[in-house]
């Protein structure tokens, strides 16, 4: 696998590496989101999603560990909880071998979907800017 020559997403003629994912509750995989387009962001240590995503898939954040999050677009407290992240192809079919269960930071009132180093660290990430594609392969 896993992901070869995945095309960038173009917005306003600016191309960015983004990946379709589906987030689910590791304790109940039937509780899962619709496909979400997440930004591939190796500069983010922990993957970040709006806290409403946790509500949707039945993850209780009441006793979850808190962590301060600082970034240009994201500031505030995140609550960390295990979540299962499946990588999807552009047609939303599952990419086998690219599923990870990691601690995700859920931010109250957050808007961004960031796929950080905690998800990416199991892969070799290759970003080919001239050809506007990226790949995630196993080491």
């Amino acid at each position, binding site marked *: 696998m896993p992901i070869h020559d995945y*095309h*960038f*997403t*173009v*917005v*306003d*003629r600016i191309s*960015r590496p*983004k990946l*379709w994912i589906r987030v689910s509750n590791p304790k109940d995989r039937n509780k899962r*989101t*619709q*496909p*979400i*387009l997440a*930004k591939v*962001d190796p*500069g*983010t240590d922990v993957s970040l999603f*709006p806290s*409403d*995503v946790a*509500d*949707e898939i039945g993850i209780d954040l009441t006793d979850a560990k808190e962590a301060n999050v600082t*970034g*240009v*677009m994201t500031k505030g407290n995140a609550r960390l909880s295990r979540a299962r992240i499946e990588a999807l192809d*552009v*047609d*939303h079919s599952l990419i086998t071998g690219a599923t990870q269960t990691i601690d995700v930071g859920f931010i109250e*009132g957050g*808007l*961004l*979907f960031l796929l950080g180093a905690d998800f990416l660290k199991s892969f070799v990430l290759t970003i080919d800017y001239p*050809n506007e594609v990226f790949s995630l392969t196993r080491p």
Partner: protein
Amino acid sequence: MGKRAVTKNKNSRKSPKARQLVEISLRPDDITMTTPDKKLYTFVLKPEHRGKIIAIANGSKKKVIAFGTHYNSVVAKAKKLSNGAFSIMFAPEKGVIYTR
């Protein structure tokens, strides 16, 4: 909504990869998001969608069916309008450079 005109990339005859890059020209206020793939994933983002979480209808005609600043409300509205066949993303502000 303004009239749309489909314009193929200049290099569309040169290689399959180049052929996938297609843009749709719109009225000046509109922006397009394109995910080049086998089927092409292009839709219109209006100015009010910028900086919001948006829901996009699946199927051949992809368009924004719900948007807002709360994920749950966007998902709830999109579920009513699409029988569950939609996807979610954040629509960036025009001209914003995302950095850390």
